Each structure stands twice: as structure tokens, then as C-alpha cells.
């Protein structure tokens, strides 16, 4: 999985933005979503990303893991990533 052709990613103080330049839509990302996109850009397998973030951020109640799963599903649904 990688960012779709027309999607640009830029980190910001609050997290990051994804800019889909064909539809000219901007998506504002919180820190968890930003961490997910960093993993995508690093080439991580999408199935591994939620667990990796859970471990990295000592996510004891699973909040980050769930957020990451939901975010990946939304990236796919919005066409912001491709295989």
C-alpha cells in the first residue's frame, strides 16, 4: 500500500495534512493518523501498522490501535491509498 498518485503528505505542528490535488481536497490529520501515514510511506504492511503503533506508544487500552485501523479503512474508502 502507498499513497495514491495525486496525494501529497506534509507534516505540521498539529499532525499533518493530506492534499488530494485532483479533487483539491485537504485532509487534516491528528498525530495518530500522521503516524499511520509515516508507516505507509516507510513501506510497512498495512496489517502490521495498528499493532506497531500500539507497541510504540504503549497503547494499553487499544485506543490508538483502533484509531489506526479505522483510519486505514477510511484512507482506502476515500481513495487516498493504492496498492
Amino acid at each position: 500500500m502507498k499513497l495514491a498518485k495525486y496525494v501529497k503528505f506534509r507534516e505540521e505542528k498539529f499532525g499533518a495534512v493530506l492534499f488530494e490535488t485532483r479533487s483539491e481536497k485537504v485532509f487534516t490529520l491528528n498525530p495518530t493518523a500522521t503516524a499511520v501515514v509515516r508507516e505507509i510511506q516507510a513501506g510497512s504492511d498495512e496489517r502490521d501498522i495498528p499493532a506497531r503503533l500500539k507497541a510504540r506508544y504503549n497503547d494499553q487500552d487499544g485506543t490508538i490501535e483502533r484509531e489506526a485501523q479505522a483510519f486505514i479503512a477510511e484512507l482506502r474508502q476515500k481513495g487516498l491509498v493504492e496498492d
Partner: protein
Amino acid sequence: MPIPASTPAATGSGDLGAPLYIAWQVTNECNLACLHCIEESGPGKAFPDELDEDEVFAVLEQAMDLEVPYLSFSGGEPMVHRRFFDMAEYVCRRNGQLKVETNGHYLGPENCARLKQIGVKAVQVSLDGATRDTFNRMRVRGNFDTAVQGVKNLRAAGVPIEINYSPTSFNAHEIGTAVDLAYELGAYSFYTGRTMYTGNAVKTWHRMAPSEEQYGPFFETLHRKTEEYRDRMRVHFHEMGLLEELRYRLHHPAALLIVLPNGLVKLINALPFVCGDLRKQTLAEIWGRFQRAWQDPRVAQFVDDLAIDPRKTATLHQWVYL
């Protein structure tokens, strides 16, 4: 976790470290002399103090270093700039996404192949008329057949196409046909909105301004076409009047810088205010100034004055330095 979505124009600039979009008028020179041109471009109309080549590439380098994701080159006619292809190539090589806004008269097969090879995100062609008669009347020195052939050449080369349309009293009724034509030509987006009273339009307003009676069916048709082409071509239009848009912008400045051919940076096309000079400040410094400039009381005053006298837009080229 729903992702909040907006557009660059609607994205508040305050929290961002750099613009999301730079709209760069690379030259004021143009091969055409269109009745409605908001920049007063035309043959021999290049500014005497346009950025030189070293300055142009220094600005592009700054934009790419700041990771500005999206740029557009317009004019005048951007393709008459001597280093146009080098500039486009630089942006795309640095992973920026570039849109070229052109009148379509330099889109021969060779240039289209080059644009494809460079990897521009899209080329937006102005087709202000669905027929030879209206297009040629509006685009003085222009040729409908040349522009349409240019779009066909883009399609043959595999370059993504956008079409822009400016309404006038004599072409507003063609809007439905124009949208259909854009789709037939292979466009993925169609843009239009209200024609502005500024630039060349100040001198030609009496013979080209659409009336409110014309705007009614114009926008009705666009609403219908939006539905008709849903999922096939995006029909994008600004129904909002200029005053409403500027009032919104006062509180929600777009994450967008307008760069003029001489390196001055405007707050927005529809205001005369300049917030920086790329010969004197870096792009990063100007981005900081941009945030503050929107709060200058003269900006809000200008918008208030516009409510009383809409023809104040005739003064947009008398730049006011903030």
C-alpha cells in the same frame, strides 16, 4: 476516526507551516488580449520588472524546500515564458504537483508530449465559448479551433485536462454545451464562476458583462450538469458573489499565496493588498506576514467599501503594501 476534509481555499492558513498552494502568474505577457482578462495581459504587456531567471528558480527552490505540495503557473500566458518548460520540469522533479493554466494556443503535439513526460498534474485550458463565434469574440487574437485542437493534443498525449469558462453576456447561454464539449474533449474537471469587474473587463464591461437574469439560468444549468456528470467529470463553480467570498476570507484566509510576475505576493486576487516581495523576503517570511496582513484594518475596510461601491474592484491593480 473521520478525517476532516476541506479544500485548499477553505483550509485555514493559521495552523500551517507553509502554504498548500502557490498560484504563480509567471509573466504578464500574453499572445491574446481577452476582453475579460483580470490581469490586463496581452501582447507587449510583460511587466518591466518581472523576476529574472535566477530569481524564478530561487523562489521555486524555496517552495519545494517548504514542501508546498501544489503550484499553478498562469499569466498572462505561462507558456510564452522563456524558461516555462524548465520551471515545470524543476517543480515536478522535486515532487511538486503542477497545474498549468493556459489559453491553449501553444499545445501542439510536441509540447503536449513534453508536458506528459515532465509529469504535470493537469493542464487547464480556457474555453470561453462553446462555439467559434463566441470564443473568438471573447478571446481577441484567439482561435477556437486552435484551442480545441490543443485540448485534443493533450488528450492524445495522456495529459489530464481541466477546462475553465468565463461567462459573458454573449456566451452565458452556451454553458450547457460548453460543459458537454469539455467532457467530449476528455476533461476531468470544469471550472467557472462569475466574471470579475477588473483588469480588461473594466473597459469592456458594458459589452460583455452577464446580467443577473442571465446568471440565473447559467447556474441552474450548472447544477443540472453537476448531477449529469457526477462520477465522470467534476463540474466546479463559484455561485457566491465576490463580496460574500471576501467576507468569508477575512475570517478564513485560504492557504494560498498569489505570486505576481515581479515577485510581489498578494493576499488574494480579488484584493489589491500585497503582503510581501520575493526579492526582499523569503517565502517563509512572507507566509508569516500573510497571516498578519489579513488582520490589517485596511483589508476589512476595503471589503466594506466594496459593499457600497462594487466597482472598486477596478482598482485591484493599484497595489497597496501592507
